[in-house]
């Protein structure tokens, strides 16, 4: 709104003319978002300080839910699993995605070679879960393939912990590599030609070219991809719900799943809300870092 800093009388009057119509145009958005997103948000925050199971009235108990939450070894287990998800999804889908983007960069037929990685992207989490449960089940497709090579003593992929979380991360990686490759490809294509040509003339190839030219130039985009990946992985729910339901026992639960179970299975509304608040605080912290990067890169451009 830089042009509004020294408003002329005319401009001020014009703005006044449209004051009510501007309010009318923004009202539906504000109303829907306020009633369906912000009001529930506030209510969840309130409930996290109460004892409530849906019947009667919520009873204020201060920080008790939070104390109970951090005392619970199961909760800490689900925090650890969630961290494993954050780390794993950065390492595998983002890493391989960058690899695929670099390999297809300036390559004839690159579009077609990228296609196999893109097919799984638009699958729902449950779609991925259906396929991978079939592959990883006991004596499933993977065990049969390994058996053909004489490996009979395979681990119980979805039962042993933390292996079950690791194989689910691989399933999500299978889905996520394509879109990361696509984003990095767009980044690579937007790198100006001149410094690249200059570096190539200086004899920079392979790893050197990557480290001195490509990587610094991809930095802003990498920050976006990493931010998206962290925020998404903190909220991991669908794939785990579809493949192990957090089990066996509670060994593969993520924070999002623990919240769902405490709330809708155990009817511990207060405790479930406290977990939701915790998840939100962590996600917000990650999102703020991501947004800051977005805004600052926009100023540069």
């Amino acid at each position, binding site marked *: 709104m830089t042009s*509004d800093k020294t408003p002329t009388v005319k401009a001020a009057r014009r*703005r006044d003319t449209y004051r009510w*119509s*501007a*309010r009318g*145009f*923004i009202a*539906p*958005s504000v109303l*829907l*978002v306020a009633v*369906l*997103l912000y009001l*529930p948000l506030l*209510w*969840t925050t309130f*409930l996290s300080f109460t004892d409530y199971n849906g019947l009667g009235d919520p009873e204020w108990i201060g920080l008790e839910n939070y104390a109970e939450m951090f005392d619970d070894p199961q909760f800490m287990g689900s925090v650890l699993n969630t961290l494993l998800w954050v780390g794993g999804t950065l390492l595998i889908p983002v890493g391989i995605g960058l690899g*695929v983007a670099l*390999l*297809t960069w300036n*390559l*004839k037929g690159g579009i077609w*070679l990228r*296609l196999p990685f*893109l*097919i799984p*992207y*638009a*699958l*729902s*989490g*449950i*779609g991925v879960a*259906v*396929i*991978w*449960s*079939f592959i990883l089940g006991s004596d*499933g*497709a993977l065990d*049969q*393939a390994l058996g053909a090579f004489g490996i009979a003593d395979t681990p119980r992929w979805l039962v042993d912990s933390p292996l079950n979380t690791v194989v689910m991360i691989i399933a999500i990686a299978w889905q996520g590599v394509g879109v990361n490759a*696509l*984003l990095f490809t767009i980044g690579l294509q937007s790198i100006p030609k001149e410094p690249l040509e200059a570096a190539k003339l200086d004899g920079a190839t*392979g790893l050197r070219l990557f480290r001195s030219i490509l990587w610094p130039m991809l930095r802003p985009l990498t920050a976006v991809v990493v931010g998206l990946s962290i925020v998404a992985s*903190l909220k991991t*729910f*669908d794939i785990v*719900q*579809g493949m192990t339901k957090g089990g066996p026992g509670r060994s593969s639960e993520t924070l*999002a799943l623990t919240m769902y179970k405490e*709330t*809708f299975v155990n009817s511990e*509304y207060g405790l479930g*809300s406290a977990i939701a608040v915790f*998840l939100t605080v962590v996600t*917000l912290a990650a*999102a703020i870092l991501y*947004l800051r990067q*977005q805004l600052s890169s926009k100023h540069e451009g």
Partner: protein
Amino acid sequence: MSRVIRTTVLIVLGLVWLLPVYLLLINASKAPEGFTSKESWIPTDFSLFSNIGDAMRLSGLGESVLSTLVYAVVSPTIAVLVGAAAGFAIVALRLRHGFAWFVLIFGGTVFPIQMIILPLFDAYSRVSLFDTRLGMIIVYTAISIPFSAFVMRNFFTGIGHNVFEAAVLDGASTWRIFTRVYLPMASSALVAIFILQATFIWNDLLLGLTLSQSDDVRPIVTSLAGMQSTYGGAQMATVLAGGLLVSLPTVVLFLFTQKFFARGLALGQ
């Protein structure tokens, strides 16, 4: 690295990536009677269509297809228009404190859905919106608005304000300027948002899980999840066929509109 090596690596890796798709296709095609989980890698027969038919009858998947189609069309349509109106108010009509309103609306997508599902469930039960199509449409619309307003505000910023002033000189009302000038100019952005949000809604599990329960209201992915946990052992071919059926629309849509997706993701969803 030479081109040959790069191409070879990509082909090998690409084939590995297609293996799960191959397994899905051949096993979803096997007749349930002769289905054995011992020979997952070898195609036997082709009963894909009868399996899909069976899947439609199991767990109410057929009824879900119809409702989900309604959700995935109606909600993004409303959200796109409502979000565009917000962008129009902020950019063209220069709403006072426009940026603050924008941040307020956009902030609605920043937190996890976990933060709102319990009060929504509670409130929906009280006002009889629980397990209704209307209730699902309302929540999907609200949740699609922030992203829509975000993109539309950015898009309208790119349109010179003289366009608006010229329309005013022609004597057009703000409503007319919005519907006849701004919306038509934004059609590509509107379509992009629509596709992204429709895909998001089609693939939703959590809201379906908490706000619906009957077959004809439950969205399709939630039905598939129910079907998998109920019949995953006994009728594997049918469940896989169901998975294929649920996945096909979004995968096809995505492959045709990759660039929209990438742009949308880069924009910050």
